């Protein structure tokens, strides 16, 4: 089966006085139908820019400079602005991290959902849309949906607001939902509820999900496939089971070591030293080299290609797998 969404050689740059600065730099990805692709990385890795590029919502002075974004074979980058508007919220919908700033504070939530529906359906009567909006609230398990219809965002808890955002995103039954850190601002108990809801809705509708997060716990819970992003590039890509069982890229190892786990009693967390390089000061070779404990002189000369290290498992590291290098194993 062909994947629902294919991203090929995507490059998103920001214009500056010193030339183009890459935020996404040659990314290839595929989102399988009915499955969840997790994209993980620290802030500033380009994961949000990647999703905005898919939606063609990159803020100025940024632009998609190269590549293709194929939704069921159609290149979204070729669409007219009107055509793209029909895709957004129609076939592809998006939810964001902060549900308070994504909702309009001066309109009742029900009307906001109706507005999203109206944008894609000019024929239905208001009464019909209202019923559909209430059904949408009901579908995201908001209790007493008909009564909640007239409430304002400030009257809802953070978890409820995120449910409203999901209801709005799913209003037109999209084939793909892009969730950009959907639970980062929420309590862990509410996060569990929202993730549970997303799984249920995926089972009901068969939609694909692109889940962007910096939390490996969320990835392990939700994703079928995982892409680890670093400084605008894919560092590693495989199924979730394979990634956690046999992580290859040193950056993935660093992320795994940073997560506090309940099932072990390490004294010290294995933090990654330093920080993500800003996109205007990227190293010439491997972008993780300045923070990598396994770095060699060769890592500085050229960026490592993303190579298949095991069936369906890709890593961009000349040192992978690390135990095969004699100087490391010693």
């Amino acid at each position, binding site marked *: 089966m062909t994947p629902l969404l294919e991203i090929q050689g995507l490059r998103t740059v920001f214009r500056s006085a010193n030339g183009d600065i890459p935020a996404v730099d040659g990314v290839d990805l595929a989102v399988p139908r009915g499955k969840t692709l997790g994209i993980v990385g*620290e*802030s500033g890795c380009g994961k949000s820019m990647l999703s905005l590029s898919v939606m063609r919502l990159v803020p100025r002075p940024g632009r998609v400079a190269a590549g293709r974004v194929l939704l069921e074979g159609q290149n979204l980058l070729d669409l007219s602005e009107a055509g793209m508007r029909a895709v957004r919220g129609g076939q592809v919908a998006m939810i964001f991290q902060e549900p308070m700033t994504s909702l309009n504070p001066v309109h009742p939530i029900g009307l906001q959902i109706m507005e999203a529906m109206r944008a894609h359906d000019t024929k239905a009567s208001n009464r019909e849309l209202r019923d559909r909006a209430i059904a949408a609230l009901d579908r995201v398990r908001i209790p007493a949906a008909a009564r909640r219809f007239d409430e304002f965002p400030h009257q809802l*808890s*953070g*978890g*409820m607001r995120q449910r409203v955002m999901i209801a709005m995103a799913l209003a037109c039954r999209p084939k793909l939902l892009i969730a950009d850190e959907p639970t980062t601002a929420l*309590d*862990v*108990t*509410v*996060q*569990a*509820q929202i*993730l*549970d809801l997303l799984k249920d809705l995926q089972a009901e509708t068969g939609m694909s999900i692109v889940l962007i997060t*910096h*939390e*490996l*716990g*969320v*990835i*392990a*819970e939700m994703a079928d496939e995982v892409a680890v992003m670093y400084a605008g590039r894919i560092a590693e890509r495989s199924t*979730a*089971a394979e990634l*956690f*069982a*046999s*992580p290859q890229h*040193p950056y993935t*190892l*660093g*992320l*795994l*070591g*940073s*997560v*506090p*786990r*309940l*099932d*072990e009693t*390490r*004294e*010290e*967390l*294995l*933090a*990654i*030293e*330093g*920080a993500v390089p800003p996109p205007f000061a990227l190293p010439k070779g491997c972008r993780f080299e300045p923070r990598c*404990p*396994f770095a060699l002189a060769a890592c500085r000369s050229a960026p490592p290609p993303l190579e298949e290290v095991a069936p369906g498992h890709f890593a961009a590291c000349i040192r992978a*797998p*690390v*135990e095969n290098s004699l100087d*490391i*194993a010693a």
Partner: protein
Amino acid sequence: MTTLLQVENLTKHYPVKKGLVLAKQVGTVRAVDGVSFQIERGETLAIVGESGCGKSTTARLVLRLIEPTSGTVRFDGQEVSGAALRTLRRRVQVVFQDPYASLNPRLRVADTIAEPMEVHGIGTPESRAARVRELLGLVGLAPFHAQRYPHEFSGGQRQRIGIARALAVQPELIICDEPVSALDVSIQAQVVNLLKDLQRRFGLSYLFIAHDLAVVHHMADRVAVMYLGQIVETAPKRAIFDRPAHPYTRALLSAIPHPDPRRRGLVKPIGGDVPSPMNPPPGCRFHTRCPFAQDRCKAEMPVLRDIGPGQQVACHFAEVLPPFDAASHEGIAPVAAKRLALYAAAKARLAAALPGRAP
């Protein structure tokens, strides 16, 4: 060990008023409702709970940034009031959650870190400048950072500046109000390691406020779980994670997604939201969301009682709850574990070879 901080029956009620001219009190928000705990010297006590449970209010009450409605705070045996407050303000420092909001954008880092010393009249300008350099080194920043402004730093670096400022007056207790929840995982790990390292070096005590039990697992010696203004369970770390006695503690634990796809589907969310602290439910405050609630829970408020060594719980049925399926001790996958060990070893070798490499 001696007790450094003793908090008894701490309460903070906010009146809710209605009407413009003749404002009438129509209700009370019980933000903190009878909280007692103590912290020994060199110990880390973590307070965990969802947003709105009163954990940050508790931290501010201990600091006396807000006045309690009732209750006492004793620091090093002395009740905090009047003149004792000034001493408290030196011996207790705070690190805030948001490293973007807690630094003055118009002050150079050197001035930010030196300010507490100035306020308390410690040292001369020269000695303070020397101390700033020393502190920057302690938190893993370089001396030249002293002349920069906060906007020139990343979130993790700002949090290091906040920690340096807290350390400036050699406090005995640092209150950490969600110090890592605004940071990326890899940076979280750096800051958690730094806090633990500083504790070992200076014998610091921490009151660590968090909503993330996984981070607490690495930081705390003891844990107090708060719900709607009250402590529902307090126990040594091991007991909290191996034998959680309160249904709410269990709910918090089973909501954590494990970084391990083999354990997928084990996350069990509890239903509902935290009720409003203006109208807390009668009886046990957790009964509206508790899977084990009985009639008695709706009528009678449970009190904190001892159920094990150092473990106290406020639940009528703590003894008869089914055993908790604690996190399996499968640990990390073997190949991943081997590579992580290599990573740690390589990192250590590098740190030994290049001590100047900035952390």
